């Protein structure tokens, strides 16, 4: 027989044998290399874990100014579900006289708060009692879990995810995944011949349409983690081999957990939604462990192809897919038939896009991103899964948004402007502690584009004036609130040779006006007169001390030829509101690791930079702006009996309409204008003030604490002359002065020294 074989064939066989040996050796080497690659790369898998950004948690205590309906609103915002009885964390129930809530557990920076069932009662002014259910124990103070408001991921990657552990997800999720994607998962070695055969047969008998994949969960994970999307046999073989190798090194548990976190489940603009943890928030605005079977079915269903099965775009298609998954769940014994029936009837339950709690507040997140940038490296922000706890107050934010959305169209109608002409921005901060509570940078409040609250640098107009008057009032030997100032024309020659002749806004002259009234009525000429007298440098220094970066040193700054953003304005007005104490505005409170360990806390910084007494006097004059000055319209919307301070701002030809002001606990700044900088025909009072006044009302902003600081005394003054009054003067008023600077001469109306003690007493009961 051997002889029959020709030499040619013999050489062929030898050649083949050598080739096969070389092939085996090469294959072995390749496998060894592939094995190493799988091990190294899987061990080195570093999840892209963007920092998660949270709003401030709502503090709840008896006496908190939160009504029960407001609390309900907050629960809805947090994705709590109304139900007939409490059925696990994230549910609430309305009983006849109380609201019962199963409050979710949460790891706060100062320790965990356990899940607890709590009953709340309240009245029109807020919460009255908080009681732990199942006991009579009343609760002094607790928090709701904070709202997840977005993520910060590095610019080069737009993957977003919230990491979950397999042991912490509801068991129904992995079980459904296995049932739908890879029934032999627990048995196979990475590839499933049965699966491949089934897919091959199915595909062979089907023309076009979607092909069935025979990939195991392990293969899919390999593909997602290490391989391209290319459809080729070479890639398929590589994928299968790597899957087998991975199974040799990694447990089924870890493979499944990795899959849960890796799989792509949706797209939000540039942002890719990875993993079930984030997908649950993205679609349902609640954590994974609160999902109903139908919701689990939906998420597992769309894993097949989140573009084709986008529940927001193709609800019918997704519903069909979800119901199919529910059927498979029943077949696999994961749910009962009656359960499937109920679940199939339920709506998809997908929250409406950006209203769903993620990426809702683009302007504020923008501020957080800028403030955090200086504190952490970009790669850490994108990969460490840091939890950033911010100062955002969702209630304040909602009210600011609602005002801008509702009031801009009214302002446009009132001025017969085309709808959409005006733009607006607003900022709300806390008076003490300098926390940014709300921010809007565009009238389209969800639009993540140009952030006017931070980046729009506009002349602030008369918003600068209080600092001119502060400079004067800080010189009590020469100025007090009733100093008489001449409202007369002024003309200045500027260093560049040009002439500057400011005019009053109403183009009129008002004779001699008391200092405080010049501010209240926002007269330009007295302001410039005072400014020139105290000096450009003094006003410049005060603005800087209040927190404004680099104001100019020109007389035109007295009238607000200073470019600043709404946030800058909020900063300097905060310093006035806080009695002259500067606290740099902060958007971040704490940062924790993804495991819930505290990393850093950002305390506000405090420094007295403006003199307290003169600030008190300036704020007194700013109350008059609202009482009877340019902003008196606000009296019609603000709560009666409360005092607020503020200032209108208008720039040349009414291009910018500003209002900035404060009460005892809130500072708010509103800007209205046009992006093309054309006149809007609105001064501060006709435009921004309308939004500000209603906003302060909606915020339930407290009135000012009118307690005078040390060094201030009140005296009875004759308003005509600004001199001391006594019983001889009708219409005398009480005015604060710096101690030691009370006028010493009596007004013409006074019969000083003539009155006896009995007149006093009569006065008391008059």
């Amino acid at each position, binding site marked *: 027989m051997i002889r029959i074989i020709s030499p040619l064939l013999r050489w062929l066989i030898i050649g083949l044998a050598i080739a096969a040996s070389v092939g085996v050796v090469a294959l072995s080497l390749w496998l060894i290399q592939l094995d190493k690659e799988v091990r190294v790369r899987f061990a080195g898998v570093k999840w892209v874990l963007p920092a998660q950004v949270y709003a401030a948690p709502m*503090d709840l*205590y*008896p*006496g*908190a100014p939160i009504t029960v309906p407001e609390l309900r609103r907050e629960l809805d915002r947090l994705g709590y579900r109304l139900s007939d009885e409490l059925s696990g964390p994230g549910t609430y129930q309305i009983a006849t006289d109380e609201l019962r809530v199963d409050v979710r557990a949460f790891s706060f*920076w*100062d320790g965990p708060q356990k899940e607890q069932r709590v009953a709340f009662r309240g009245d029109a002014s807020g919460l009255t009692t908080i009681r732990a259910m199942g006991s009579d124990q009343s609760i*002094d*103070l607790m928090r709701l879990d904070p709202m997840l408001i977005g993520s910060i991921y590095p610019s080069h990657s737009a993957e977003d995810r919230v990491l979950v552990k397999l042991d912490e997800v509801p068991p129904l999720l992995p079980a459904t995944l296995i049932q739908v994607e890879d029934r032999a998962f627990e048995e196979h070695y990475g590839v499933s011949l049965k699966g491949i055969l089934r897919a091959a047969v199915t595909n062979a008998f089907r023309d076009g349409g979607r092909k069935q994949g025979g990939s195991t969960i392990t293969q899919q994970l390999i593909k997602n983690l290490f391989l391209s999307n290319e459809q080729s046999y070479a890639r398929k073989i590589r994928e299968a081999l790597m899957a087998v190798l991975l199974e040799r090194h990694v447990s089924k548990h870890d493979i499944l957990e990795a899959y849960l976190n890796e799989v792509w489940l949706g797209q939000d603009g540039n942002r890719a939604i990875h993993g079930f943890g984030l997908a649950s928030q993205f679609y349902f605005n609640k954590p994974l462990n609160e999902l109903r079977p139908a919701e689990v079915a939906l998420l597992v269903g769309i894993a097949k192809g989140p573009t084709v099965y986008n529940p927001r775009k193709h609800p019918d298609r997704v519903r069909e897919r979800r119901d199919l998954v529910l059927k498979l769940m029943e077949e696999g014994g994961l749910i009962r038939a009656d359960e499937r029936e109920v679940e199939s009837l339920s709506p998809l339950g997908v929250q409406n896009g950006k209203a769903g709690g993620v990426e809702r507040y683009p302007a504020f997140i923008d501020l957080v991103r800028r403030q955090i940038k200086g504190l952490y490296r970009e790669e850490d922000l994108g990969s460490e899964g840091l939890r950033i706890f911010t100062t955002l107050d969702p209630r304040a934010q909602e009210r600011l948004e609602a005002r801008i959305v509702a009031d801009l169209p009214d302002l446009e109608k009132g001025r017969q402007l085309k709808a959409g002409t005006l733009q607006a921005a607003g900022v709300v901060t*806390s*008076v*003490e*502690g300098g*926390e940014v509570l709300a921010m809007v940078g565009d009238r389209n409040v969800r639009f993540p584009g140009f952030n006017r609250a931070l980046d729009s640098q506009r002349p602030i107009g008369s918003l600068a004036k209080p600092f001119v008057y502060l400079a004067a009032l800080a010189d009590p030997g020469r100025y007090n609130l009733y100093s008489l100032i001449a409202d007369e024309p002024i003309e200045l020659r500027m260093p560049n040779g040009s002439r500057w002749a400011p005019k009053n806004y109403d183009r009129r002259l008002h004779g001699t006006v008391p200092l405080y009234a010049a501010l209240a009525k926002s007269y330009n000429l007295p302001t410039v007169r005072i400014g020139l007298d105290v000096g450009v440098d003094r006003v410049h220094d005060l603005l800087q001390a209040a927190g404004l970066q680099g104001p100019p040193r020109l007389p035109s700054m007295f009238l607000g030829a200073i470019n600043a953003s709404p946030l800058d304005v909020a900063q300097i007005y905060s310093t006035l509101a806080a*009695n002259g*104490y500067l606290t740099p505005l902060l958007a971040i409170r*704490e940062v924790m690791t993804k495991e819930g360990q505290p990393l850093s*806390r950002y*305390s*506000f*910084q*405090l*420094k*007295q930079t403006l003199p*307290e007494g003169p600030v008190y006097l300036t704020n007194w004059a700013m109350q008059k702006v609202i009482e009877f000055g340019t902003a008196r319209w606000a009296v019609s919307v603000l709560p009666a009996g409360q005092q607020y301070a503020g200032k209108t701002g208008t720039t040349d030809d009414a291009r910018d309409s500003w209002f900035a002001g404060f009460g*005892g*606990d809130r500072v708010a700044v509103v800007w209205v204008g046009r992006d093309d900088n054309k006149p809007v025909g609105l001064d501060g009072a006709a435009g921004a003030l309308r939004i500000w006044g209603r906003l302060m009302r909606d915020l339930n902003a407290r009135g000012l*604490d*009118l*307690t*005078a*600081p*040390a060094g201030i*005394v*009140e*005296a*009875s*003054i004759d308003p005509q002359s600004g001199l*001391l*009054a*006594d019983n001889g003067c009708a*219409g*005398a*008023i*009480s*005015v*604060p002065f710096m*101690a030691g600077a009370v006028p010493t001469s009596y007004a013409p109306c006074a019969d000083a020294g003539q009155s006896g003690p*009995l007149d*006093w*007493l009569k*006065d*008391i*009961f*008059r």
Partner: protein
Amino acid sequence: MNLFSWPAMGFRLRLAALGALTLAVAGCVSEAPVRTPRTTGQVLVPPAAAKPARPEAPVVQPPLLPPPPVMPPVAVDYPKTLAAAGAAAPVLALARQAQQSRAAGQHDAALGQWQRALRIEPRNAFLWHEIAVTHLKLKHAGQAESAAQKSTSLAHGNLWLEAQNWRLIATARRVLLDVTGAEAATARADSLSAGLATASP
């Protein structure tokens, strides 16, 4: 006596002022209180040198006028704690937490708790004082001084608390090596304390 403007004052305020006047007459005090006239309505704080009213002192009753209101005793016994100053239950709960943190040496946690309390009562001078104390423990002397100043700004004439604040400022200034400033602060605290000692019953 020109420091008040009667028409601008509310009726309650006038009553309070009348009471103060009566007491001042009774106690032979010639100086009317000048601090915080616009919000006085509850307790009038006399200057440190004021002597407490003697109940047996004759009170001048003007004819044909309603009897003067019953006034609380002059408060020289300033509140010395958060609880005495009437802080709300959640603030006291946080104060307990903060004190536990302080006892455990966890001053940063304590600072966070005091600041959380401050969000509930932002103008509570005692909270600002505690924040100052905590900053000092954390060796933030500058912040300690600022917070103590703020506490004094909001103390509404609680001279005891003001004295505490000035002592704390003195310590903070010593940390900052500002010897003259520290001496000035100590002197301020001492004079306040001396005034309190003479004024106490």
